[in-house]
């Protein structure tokens, strides 16, 4: 059942000085089912975080539609918008700056509940303990302050806060990127358990392709503001159809020296251009080993391959026929 339906969303920002605009997100469409995880991957400046903020109604798109559970997020105003936002909270990368250092853990995790109530109704005293239990923390942590917690514990608190209003969807924006390997593994396991027990859907934004593969049912690959490929995770990873996806997957070093040193890797030229000057035609063409004349002039449409797997590349047929190297 579709929980989140995003259609043709676009957003530009005015650049500082000059009259240019940053085309942060262009024509982004996807769907996310209840209880599922959509992984959004891409390099810096690809528009991953802006997409999340647009979907959650935190910034307004220039074009497009966003529906949560059939309700139009962009048409909602005031109390209705706030009620919708409580159904889709966000967890940020840095638990050192996303938690108020002067508040106790109890105040932090129950704030969303308080905001959703009338002033005269208090939050039940047990709610903080319930939320902490959900994220595997003892009730005693309710009296602590963020500075008394480790990075992993802080991120658990941020997750507990996100769960406070029984959300349908949690947007996780690089939520484990700042954590150590062993701490990260614990948080990922927790997120997986919470999805099973609560049926919450995740918008999992990350630059870590291996992690996205592990947690996502579907994956969307973004490049300079566009989704260049999306589909069921295993299909995309096993048979990437866009040259950028192929480059990205093969650039991730594998923690196995035998495999890592014997991989054939298509060379990726240069770096991501500035979103101030998105290349003409296909935005990836200056870095693409397969680019031809058509790529320089015409932005490729999204081509459906099979089973929800789609890619925006003029040479999709060429790539899928020849298989992945």
């Amino acid at each position, binding site marked *: 059942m579709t929980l989140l339906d995003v259609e043709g969303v676009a957003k530009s920002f005015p650049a500082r000085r000059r009259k240019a605009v940053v085309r942060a997100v262009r024509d982004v469409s996807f769907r996310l089912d209840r209880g599922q995880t959509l992984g959004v991957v891409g*390099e810096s400046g690809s528009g991953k975080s802006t997409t999340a903020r647009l979907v959650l109604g935190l910034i307004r798109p220039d074009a497009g539609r966003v529906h949560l559970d059939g309700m139009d997020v962009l048409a909602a105003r005031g109390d209705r918008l706030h009620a919708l936002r409580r159904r889709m909270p966000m967890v940020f990368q840095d638990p050192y700056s996303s938690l108020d250092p002067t508040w106790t853990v109890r105040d932090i995790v129950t704030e969303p509940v308080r905001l959703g109530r009338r002033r005269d109704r208090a939050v039940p005293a047990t709610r903080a303990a319930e939320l902490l239990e959900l994220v595997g923390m003892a009730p005693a942590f309710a009296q602590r302050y963020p500075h008394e917690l480790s990075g992993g514990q802080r991120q658990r608190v941020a997750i507990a806060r996100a769960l406070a209003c029984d959300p349908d969807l949690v947007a996780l924006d690089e939520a484990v990127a700042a954590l150590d390997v062993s701490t990260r593994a614990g948080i990922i396991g927790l997120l997986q358990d919470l999805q099973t027990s609560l049926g919450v859907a995740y918008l999992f934004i990350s630059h870590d392709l291996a992690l996205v593969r592990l947690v996502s049912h579907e994956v969307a690959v973004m490049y300079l503001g566009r989704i260049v490929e999306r589909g069921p995770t295993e299909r995309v990873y096993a048979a990437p159809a866009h040259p950028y996806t192929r480059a990205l997957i093969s650039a991730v*070093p594998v923690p196995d*020296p035998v495999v890592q040193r014997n991989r054939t890797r298509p060379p990726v030229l240069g770096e991501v251009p500035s979103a101030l000057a998105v290349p003409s035609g296909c935005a990836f063409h200056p870095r693409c080993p397969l680019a031809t004349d058509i790529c320089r002039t015409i932005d490729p449409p999204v081509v459906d391959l099979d089973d929800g797997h789609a890619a925006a590349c003029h040479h999709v047929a060429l790539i899928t026929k020849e298989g992945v190297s």
Partner: protein
Amino acid sequence: MNAVLEINDLVVEVATAHGPMVVVSNVSLAVGAGETLGLVGESGSGKSLTTLAVLRLLGTSARIASGEILLRGPDGVLDLVTLPERRMRDVRGGRIGMVFQEPMTALDPAYSVGEQVAETVRRHLGLGRTDAWKRAVELLDRVGIPSADRRAHDHPHHFSGGMRQRVVIAMALSCDPVVLLADEPTTALDVTVQEQILTLLGELRDESGLALLFISHDLGVIADISDRVAVMYAGQVVETAPVHELFAAPRHPYTRALLRCVPSPGSDRLATIPGTVPTFDALPLGCRFAPRCEHAAAVCEGAPIGLDTVAATHFARCVRIEEVVS
């Protein structure tokens, strides 16, 4: 092997209100010419402090309490622990080049990149302005900056993250160092750019016979670039081995657990390590990993555990290796 950089029994202390606290405990490492030693560990394991100690850049709150840091060059052996500060300044950026995580902290935004590379050359090699500039352009070209003669006039903010890191690498290489210390040099970069920088560092090492000490928390990066790997935990080296052996047959329970914490294709759960890294004011007397170790037994507690020989080039700080492996 004749190591270019050899660290013996290095102890680093940090001053606290309750007296000195040991944060790097008897670390011994060696890197040979043309070799890459990968140093891996989680935050607080002491890997960055070890590199800062090599450069004697520990600041005012930390100090080298004991040990030796030997740098072998054409003109003999220097012990960096006892070297006068004046001569240490020649070593930093001279015989030892360094590359850190964030290129913008290593570059001055007010000067062109050419001037910055040329300044290092003038300072260490004593070249004149014209020659130093020529050498700077050559170096920028060598590290893959396109149209280096023109781009040398640009300031750092005109460069992308990857290009800035190339500039920093050019500065590090400017005085033909024998050792390159690279502390998380690709962590702030995008993955396609990371690949390019790793390739570049590998080439430079092979061309000039640099000894490369490469620090990273990323096991994939370590697997890519290292010849040998040292794993650090709570201020100690807990295992060291040639890269293939370390990944194929890790012996220390921490190394084994760490390798299971990273995603591998086909699995849908990550292994976790219970508990947390001990704080330096409450280190266990015996094995520092014992409180989190599934193989821990009475023998692990009570007394410090030494590095045990597994094979000629493979060492692990564990007294229960037999049980761990079976």
